[in-house]
């Protein structure tokens, strides 16, 4: 009997606790726009029609400070990419402050490491959100995708460099700092087809159209460029994607998804080494026949591979970054 009463009390307590915040939380919940709505677009008319819009200040108040918040994976699987970006961010801010800051206001930076984990990204976001940031900066696709709805609900603009399709579309409060991955791949295909006569490998002189193999991480980030849209675009441009090589983020494995073995061995190919990570990329690259026909590198650099990777990929001819 006592157990039943205890259980009932606990359930009642939990339900009452659940019910109470309705009044206080309701505005937040109802105000939350769906990810499909574009808050930027809806607010635009306000700016043009509202006479009450405060005038833009041309000069900062004395001692005014603008804090920029950024966070990314500095110790996890993407550290090779993100850590230099964090350092570069600091350098850029130092240079900006040396020139007088933003209209006289000095710029401060707060950053945090996520270790490549979404739970850390959410936790950091909660912490930064309480400081009412003007803008946030992020570097990871997973983080961007995971926080996209929260950013829209909290109306915090976010400049991201983890530019996967699901993180960027439909538009919201996430803004891409560089073209999204599928666009980058499309641009590479544009360049490749336009310059095919010039960069055609010696063994592929009989080919009218390039054939491409993709070597990338087996992660959401790595696969960011391999969308149905890019496949359709490659088909439209007459470029055949003959092989997709995926390596795990621990850089110890390599998995193949090729269209046919015949395709791989009969024709030389150009290969965009998308989003490289040292050893894993080198191992996968080793499996692609005619590997010295490297034409494109990923959206970021391939430095992580060091000399070992460069020996594989950047033997003559010299690479051309797509």
């Amino acid at each position: 009997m006592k157990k039943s009463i205890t259980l009932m009390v606990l359930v009642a307590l939990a339900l009452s606790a659940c019910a109470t915040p309705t009044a206080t939380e309701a505005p937040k919940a109802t105000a939350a726009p769906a990810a499909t709505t574009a808050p930027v677009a809806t607010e635009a008319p306000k700016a043009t029609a509202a006479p009450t819009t405060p005038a833009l200040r041309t000069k900062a108040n004395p001692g005014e400070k603008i804090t920029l918040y950024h966070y990314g994976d500095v110790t996890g699987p993407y550290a090779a990419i993100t850590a230099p970006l964090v350092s570069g961010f600091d350098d850029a801010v130092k240079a900006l402050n040396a020139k007088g800051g933003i209209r006289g206001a000095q710029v401060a930076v707060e950053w945090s490491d996520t270790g490549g984990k979404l739970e850390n990204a959410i936790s950091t976001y909660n912490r930064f959100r309480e400081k009412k940031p003007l803008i946030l900066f992020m570097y990871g696709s997973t983080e961007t995708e995971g926080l996209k709805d929260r950013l829209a609900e909290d109306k915090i603009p976010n400049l991201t460099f983890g530019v996967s399709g699901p993180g960027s579309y439909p538009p919201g409060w996430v803004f891409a700092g560089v073209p999204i991955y599928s666009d980058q791949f499309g641009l590479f295909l544009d360049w490749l087809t336009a310059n095919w006569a010039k960069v055609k490998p010696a063994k592929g002189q009989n080919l009218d159209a390039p054939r491409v193999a993709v070597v990338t991480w087996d992660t959401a980030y790595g696969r960011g460029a391999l969308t149905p849209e890019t496949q359709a675009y490659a088909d439209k441009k007459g470029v055949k994607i003959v092989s997709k090589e995926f390596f795990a983020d621990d850089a110890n494995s390599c998995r193949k998804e090729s269209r046919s073995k015949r395709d791989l061995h009969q024709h030389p190919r150009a290969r965009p080494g998308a989003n490289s990570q040292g050893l894993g990329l080198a191992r996968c690259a080793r499996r692609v026949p005619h590997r010295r026909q490297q034409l494109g590198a990923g959206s970021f650099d391939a430095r992580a591979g060091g000399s070992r990777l460069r020996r594989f990929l950047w033997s003559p001819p010299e690479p051309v970054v797509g």
Partner: protein
Amino acid sequence: MALRLAGDFDTSYGHDMAVIRTRGQWLMTLVFLVALFALPFFAGSGVLGTLNLIGISIIVVHGLNLLVGYTGQISLGQAAFMSVGAYTSAVLVKNGVSFWLALPTAGFVAGMVGLLFGLPALRIKGFYLAMATLSAQFIIPWFFRNVREDIFGGMPGLRVPPPELGGIIFNSQQTMYFPIMGVVVLCTIVAKNIARTRLGRAFVAIRDSDLAAEVLGIHGFTYKLRAFFLSAFYAGLAGSLWAHYARSINPEQFSLLNSVWYLGMVIVGGMGSALGPILGATFIRLLEETTIQFSPLLGKIFPEVQAGLLAGLGPLLFGLVLMLFLVFEPRGLAHRWELLKAAWRLRPFAH
């Protein structure tokens, strides 16, 4: 007040078996529960976000503790079972099923998958079983990454809507706190009581000596399977809550490293104790939070050092603290808590 004084005897079997025995303990429990559920009205979203993550970890670790701590079976696939719950719940809710129904279903489906991967426990144990459960950590993410991308979203994963109840959308740290903590409280009560039932005692018997347990009439294989089911069930519940809390899931989020950390939480908290998972998950999560916040602070103190190098100090500190902890308190924080309670009872005497 909360401790039993000399001369306070049990007068019935019910009283003897009760988890909460004195009025003082009842009062403290009620105050704690009221404080727990009143917290969102006072705390900021940063604190609540951390508590939500701790809460989800506690549920997973409770499950793992039933398997590892009570039954003595090793599992390295807890994160994979969590992913089964997360995907089950996400797919169900996206197809119109209520979250409140999807939550237990996710637990059940994860439990069944856990049962499947527990089958090798019939023949193997120890490190061999660990390797067998490790296969779950490879097979299950592969499944979600490559099979039926139209349903599971492939590598990019799925976007998951927040739970709803009577017009309330649970889309903030404050609102999500209630379902998460509600499940934490229920799971803790169940975990505590499982250990006190015939089932729990059979688990402990198998852990201590499976041969002796068989001689006593305990069918080891079925009980081991039950432990695997319960462990994965808990993971499935946590996975469902995580999916709707994070609102975006992909196979990357349920890595082998996560499984190892959950195992670490069980060890740090104290195996075979209902309090252990709470202490272990809280300790490790807070340690991680602290190191994350500590690194940028170091950057301010030593601005000439590269940011990446300083960030590396975080995991270094993390590993160091864990190592020291395991050397000096291998029986876990729960044991330390018991020692503290005993010292308080016996004061001013040492023994």
